[in-house]
């Protein structure tokens, strides 16, 4: 079983509704935008509740892993990143990338979302390097490859693409909008 990385873990085990939600709200205030919260709960209704809560508060519900009696919910705090202007000049839309994937072209897809986002849903065979780790893990990538950089909405991948370009990667393409609208095949880790 893979371990999903989170910034903060909240123990809401043994608590009845509405306590898991109340605790989740409080825990969220300790996170910075874009960080990941893991909520451990045993309340069976918490899955639907956490999901609905995220929808109405604007945070991102990533998914839930069940381990025996314990439900582990993963949430990513809203960050407002969608409003940043995108600067990397080379872009491709989801549909065009999807046809490249479908035609079995040899391409490299780099997913720069947080590991917990990648864990629940990603393009098969894509590589996971969260934006925050890119600097120190850039050496895992090949400068000669054509790299398609993807995130949820195209903002983090834009920053990643700029960073790669500045470090000598010449064939970097940002995928727009990215996973939020991806209709092609996806995979998830063995959770």
């Amino acid at each position, binding site marked *: 079983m893979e371990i999903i990385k989170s910034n903060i873990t909240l123990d809401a085990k*043994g*608590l*009845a*509704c*509405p*306590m898991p*939600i*109340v605790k*989740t*709200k409080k825990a969220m205030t300790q996170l910075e935008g874009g960080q990941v919260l893991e909520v451990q709960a045993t309340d069976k209704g918490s899955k639907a*509740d956490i999901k609905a*809560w995220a929808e*109405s*508060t604007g945070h991102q519900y990533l998914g839930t892993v069940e381990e025996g009696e314990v439900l582990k919910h993963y949430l990513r705090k809203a960050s407002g990143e969608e409003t940043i202007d995108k600067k990397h000049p080379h872009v491709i839309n989801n549909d065009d990338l999807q046809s490249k994937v479908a035609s079995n072209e040899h391409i490299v897809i780099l997913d720069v979302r947080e590991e917990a986002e990648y864990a629940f849903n990603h393009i098969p065979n894509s590589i996971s390097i969260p934006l925050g780790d890119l600097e120190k893990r850039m050496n895992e990538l090949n400068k000669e490859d054509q790299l398609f950089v993807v995130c949820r909405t195209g903002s983090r991948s834009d920053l990643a693409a700029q960073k790669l370009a500045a470090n000598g990667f010449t064939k970097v393409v940002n995928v727009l909008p990215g996973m939020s609208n991806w209709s092609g095949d996806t995979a998830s880790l063995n959770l």
Partner: protein
Amino acid sequence: MSKKVAIIASNGGLFDGYKVFNIASAAAATDQEVAIFFTFEGLNLIHKQANQQLAMPAGKEHFAEGFAKANVPSIPELLSMAQEMGVKFIGCQMTMDVMGLEKEAFVYGIEVGGAVTFLEFAKGADVTLTF
């Protein structure tokens, strides 16, 4: 934009307390603005002594075990949590007069007002609930 939830609490049993404070806390935790108008028996829910020993409905006493097993917080706990999250409590002045109760008999932080105080809030509410 945050939504507004207006709740009328007009019954004073233990089940009523849970219905009112659970919904109110959940709404507040979801960034909604919540006000509860406590009227008639509903005042029990915010009465300092009465709300520590709210009655189960007749014949439902056996649920006490279930409450303990499910680790459900007590009414005073739920109440202070709701207050902490900014839920507004309005005690009905007219009922208090009828019952001869002063504001001091109730938990700290309540407002006392008439029907119009509540209606003013409820006018702009997205959700209105009566318990």
